[in-house]
């Protein structure tokens, strides 16, 4: 173990203990109002949070939680030795950048004002895409995609034909998913092979679940393009399984034939609760990170576990903040949270 890794692992152990516990998260979810939630949050390591008057408080809080997560991630990247730092940067910055690019492309597609597009972005600096501002200010979606030429996103040009044919932005979003999954897995090469297992499992699970969700959405509809084009990146769930999910008359048997963890993750679809599938995916990632950490308590898995736990914490807090702002009953909020139900 390199001294850099040793220090990063010890720091990650310490940082994990500063994350919110299931009880703390449950108490936050039990707050009566948004003000009560912010008050309870001030008693945690998040401290006092102030949000600007006017505008949507849940959006402002979402930005704050994203910033906190990015801050934590940047802190770990700074501590980690070169190869791990490179991987983490590629993995996390790329993920958020892909999300931002999707929002920019959607904004350009629906003729949103550049200011509005920029406001909707996750507060990170561009990683590989050049300038978010320039992309948001591009005169059209086609121009924005052209501006990505020469970056790892230049493959988007290949999906422009499908975009034009279907007059829909989803082929570009799928291409971005593919670029993210393949780049993240490529960047894994920089890690020792025993450290790759957890990340590979997480990336593959994420991609497979997204593919399955896309397949479920297209159930009963004729596929608008060949499956290879619709699902450019597949891992444990191949095109045949995806075809089966799309075409099978008996969805229950199609899903149970996928086996664990997919059959368990997708089971809320039987009750028509598709949103719970994402919560279950996050819960599986959380549990996998916890298992990975317990298997190797002094290795890269600890760093990864810290970041996975932080990200799940961020998602849970965003959910609670929105739920409290909208006065959603606590039981309904708790249903879609991961940490209090672990």
């Amino acid at each position: 173990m390199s001294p850099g890794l040793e220090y990063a692992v010890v720091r990650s152990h310490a940082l994990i203990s500063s994350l919110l516990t299931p009880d703390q998260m449950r108490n936050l979810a039990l707050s009566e109002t948004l003000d009560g939630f912010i008050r309870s949050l001030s008693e945690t390591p998040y401290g006092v949070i102030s949000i600007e008057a006017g505008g949507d408080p849940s959006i402002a809080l979402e930005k704050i939680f994203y910033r906190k997560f990015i801050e934590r991630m940047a802190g770990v990247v700074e501590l980690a030795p070169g190869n791990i730092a490179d991987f983490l940067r590629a993995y996390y910055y790329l993920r958020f950048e892909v999300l931002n690019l999707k929002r920019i492309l959607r904004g350009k597609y629906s003729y949103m004002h550049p200011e509005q597009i920029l406001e909707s972005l996750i507060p990170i600096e561009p990683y590989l895409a050049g300038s978010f501002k320039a992309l948001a200010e591009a005169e059209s979606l086609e121009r924005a995609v052209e501006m990505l030429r020469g970056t790892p996103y230049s493959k988007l040009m290949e999906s422009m034909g499908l975009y034009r044919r279907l007059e829909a932005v989803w082929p570009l979003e799928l291409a971005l998913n593919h670029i993210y999954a393949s780049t993240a897995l490529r960047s894994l090469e920089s890690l020792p092979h025993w450290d790759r297992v957890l990340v590979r499992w997480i990336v593959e699970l994420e991609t497979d679940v997204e593919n399955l969700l896309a397949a479920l959405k297209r159930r009963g509809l004729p596929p608008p393009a060949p499956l290879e084009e619709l699902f450019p990146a597949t891992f444990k769930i191949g095109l045949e399984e995806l075809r089966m999910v799309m075409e099978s008359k008996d969805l229950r048997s199609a899903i149970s034939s996928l086996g664990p963890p997919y059959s368990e993750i997708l089971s809320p679809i039987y009750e028509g609760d598709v949103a719970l599938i994402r919560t279950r995916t996050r819960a599986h990632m959380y549990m996998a990170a916890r298992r990975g950490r317990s298997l190797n308590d002094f290795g890269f898995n600890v760093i990864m576990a810290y970041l996975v736990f932080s990200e799940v914490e961020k998602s849970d807090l965003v959910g609670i903040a929105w739920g409290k702002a909208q006065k959603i009953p606590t039981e309904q909020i708790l249903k879609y949270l991961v940490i209090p139900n672990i």
Partner: protein
Amino acid sequence: MSTLMTVRPTKGYLMELKRRIGFIERGCEFLKLKRDHLAKELSASLEILRGRRRLLLQSLREAYSALTAAYLSIGPTEVRSQAMSVRKALEVEVLPRSVMGVRYPYVKILSKPEIGGELDITLSHAASKVLGVLEDIVRLAEFEARAERIADELGKTNRKVNALENIVIPAYRQIIRFIQDKLDDESLEELVKMKLVGGALARRRE
């Protein structure tokens, strides 16, 4: 009584009044028929409205729950960003329709948003429910407007029937009776006059 002072007690006027009252009574009968039909239509509409409202509330609850789940699952900014990518909006045209002469608005849906491809499955699920509810709301609003207009028209028709039955027709009958009495008096007077003249002429001949 003041109206009676201005009445011309002539046979011609009596005939004109009898023609008029016949016309008014026929009109009143038609209005009564219309009132009964409107009342039947309204009570049937209210029954349907009650049922539709209950169904709509149920669908609204489901749609709201699906939307809440989508927000909790992917976060408010992502929901907004994805929602913006739906280009086509719901377009409607309001046209007039009529039932028993009662005009009410009919909402024709020209185009619906295409939500299938662009949205994440959670949001697409919520959006399809909201879209279904939106159509139900449009139909219910149209039905409510129809019931409201029918109720208005029923009120108006009822007032007209009451006015005709209790004021106009009795007033006409009174005038007719007054003219008939006058004409009877006049003819009796004429008869007496004739008798007197006849008697005088007979006495002179003797």
